[in-house]
């Protein structure tokens, strides 16, 4: 077993896939010096500058050319640096990458991974902090991954690289340093398979990405009060594990969905609606969504803190359902 950080897990996944498959390569700004957070540290030394490629500050060209490179037989891993900058390449992702397979009648796919580090981190304010996962879930043709642990980052990035379709791969910036013991040999993960973080009988809390930590902390607090909470980490948002969520709510009769993103139109709404449709008669309390208010992310820390969904808010939501 090796102690591995979330960041290191991503690096390891990419390196292992690059060793296995010579058509895998990565491209993005500053990759030759390890990338903006150090996710690519040392990689150019092993794989050379053609496969760990620098790029001009040209997001549309980075993503657009990756679509072409994917159509022509390689597997590009595109680094967007911050999810926010991927917005400079939305046409390339949404109109081009996501559509090609269907529009061209299945003649070929776009095996492309778009890494988009997301979320609030060190007072980065409105243009460097967003959680936009729901946008991508809305687009047919895209797979959306938001790992919460080093192990999932390792396994799911491998799966993403092996996927024949475009994958929006959202690592959370606040998780880079978290550690986990991982095996020497970790196979690719499975899309659409949730992880039960903790078993429970009284309520189900569903979340993903960094919010899973807060859900687990809330469950811990509630356990001390004698409330047994089941915590589910979705891991991938498209496809998502409806079966696991529905089975859990069948058992508990209560659902809280916790997300860092703006709640309005967020992925939590999809989970809440799905559970309401399936379990309307057996719910013991109305489904509750937790998320940020519909405001840009402010810089000042006390303001930023106000829009975070912390363990207290999650625990309070569960208590209100009991």
């Amino acid at each position: 077993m090796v102690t591995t950080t979330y960041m290191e897990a991503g690096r390891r996944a990419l390196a292992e896939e690059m060793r296995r498959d010579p058509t895998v390569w990565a491209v993005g700004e500053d990759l030759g010096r390890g990338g903006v957070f150090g996710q690519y540290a040392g990689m150019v030394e092993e794989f050379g500058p053609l496969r760990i490629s620098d790029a001009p500050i040209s997001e549309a060209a980075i993503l657009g050319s990756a679509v072409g490179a994917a159509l022509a037989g390689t597997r590009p891993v595109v680094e967007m640096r911050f999810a926010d900058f991927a917005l400079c390449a939305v046409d390339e992702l949404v109109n081009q990458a996501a559509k090609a397979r269907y529009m061209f009648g299945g003649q070929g796919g776009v095996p492309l991974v778009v890494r988009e580090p997301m979320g609030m981190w060190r007072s980065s304010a409105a243009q460097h902090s967003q959680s936009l996962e729901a946008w991508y879930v809305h687009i047919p043709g895209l797979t959306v991954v938001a790992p919460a642990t080093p192990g999932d980052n390792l396994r799911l990035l491998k799966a993403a690289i092996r996927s024949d379709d475009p994958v929006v791969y959202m690592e959370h910036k606040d998780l880079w340093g978290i550690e986990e013991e991982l095996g020497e040999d970790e196979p690719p993960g499975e899309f659409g398979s949730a992880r039960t973080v903790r078993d429970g009988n009284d309520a189900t809390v569903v979340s993903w990405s960094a919010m899973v930590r807060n859900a687990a902390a809330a469950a811990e607090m509630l356990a001390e009060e004698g409330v047994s909470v089941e915590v589910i980490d979705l891991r991938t948002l498209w496809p998502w594990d409806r079966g696991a969520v529905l089975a859990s709510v069948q058992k508990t009769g209560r659902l809280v969905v916790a997300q860092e993103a703006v709640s309005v139109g967020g992925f939590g709404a999809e989970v809440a609606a799905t559970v309401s449709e399936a379990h309307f008669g057996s719910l013991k309390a109305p489904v509750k969504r937790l998320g940020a208010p519909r405001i840009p992310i402010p810089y000042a820390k006390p303001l930023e803190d106000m829009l975070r969904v912390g363990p207290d808010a999650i625990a309070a939501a569960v208590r209100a359902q009991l």
Partner: protein
Amino acid sequence: MSGPRPNLDLERLADRHRRMHRIRAFEEQAVAALEEGLVLGAIHPSIGQEACAVGAVGSLAREDLLLSTHRGHGHTLEKGASAVAMMRELFGREGGNCGGKGGSMHIADFSVGMLGANGVVGANINIAAGAAHAVRLKGERRIVCCIFGDGAVNRGPFLEGLNWARVFDLPVLFVCEDNAFAATTRTEAMTGGPGPAARAEALGIPARAVDGNDVDVVAEVTTELRERILDGGGPQFLWAKTWRLTGHTAVDKAAYRDAGEVEERWKDDPIARAADTLRAHGVAGETLSGHREAAVQEMRAAYEEAKAADWPEDRALYADVQDVGDPREAAFRW
């Protein structure tokens, strides 16, 4: 280092020297405050690039409009924003230019025509073209100045915004403040062709290349281009070559550069260069060190004031989102 100059105006250069020191002192104070945890988010110092701010922005009129970048402290100060308000903004406090909601990368001060720094490289170029469009539509006599880095010329908006300005003949001055780096990348390695000026010219926009570490030259050419724009000459382009003496952000040690190279570049520090010229023409050493001391004192006072300032009130969180709808809808807090 500084040969005889035909248009040397000692008083004016001394004033520019003083103003460059204000920018330097502001940023040094901000970096120290970051180390103390008082500056909350990332800051991008422009140490070594002060001649561009003072030369270009200092040659604009109050009514001119300015669009800047993530590395915009100097531009903003020169446009006339208050150093105290800027320091408060960096600390995320009440009384910051943006009420503490923007931070270093999003400083704006509309009261002095500063329409915003930007966290997205190159995004200010189309915005500047649009501001110039409005100036033309309203028949105003002023220009828009848009400053961006050498890295930004590789983004799509560079092509689209410059073409727009040319096609509509807009009163805009594009300034490429070329500090040779885009984050950890040497921009040269990622930029095809002969560079920013040639690209502007290819779009029909007259371009001038200048030594961006010579504050008088930057000012002189900016003044000339501004006049030309006001005379109906349409968009103009200035390529000011300088060098980023410190890291990309205040925490970047810039290990990707050789110490010898950096040391060599410090010899071309624009502030030292101005000081050399002034000294060579008889300006007293005390005058020059006085500029530094006054700047340090001013920025120390700004720091003290920002440190003592209150945090924004809670209700600021929900203010200024938009006029319609309730921003708290479906969120966890009512």
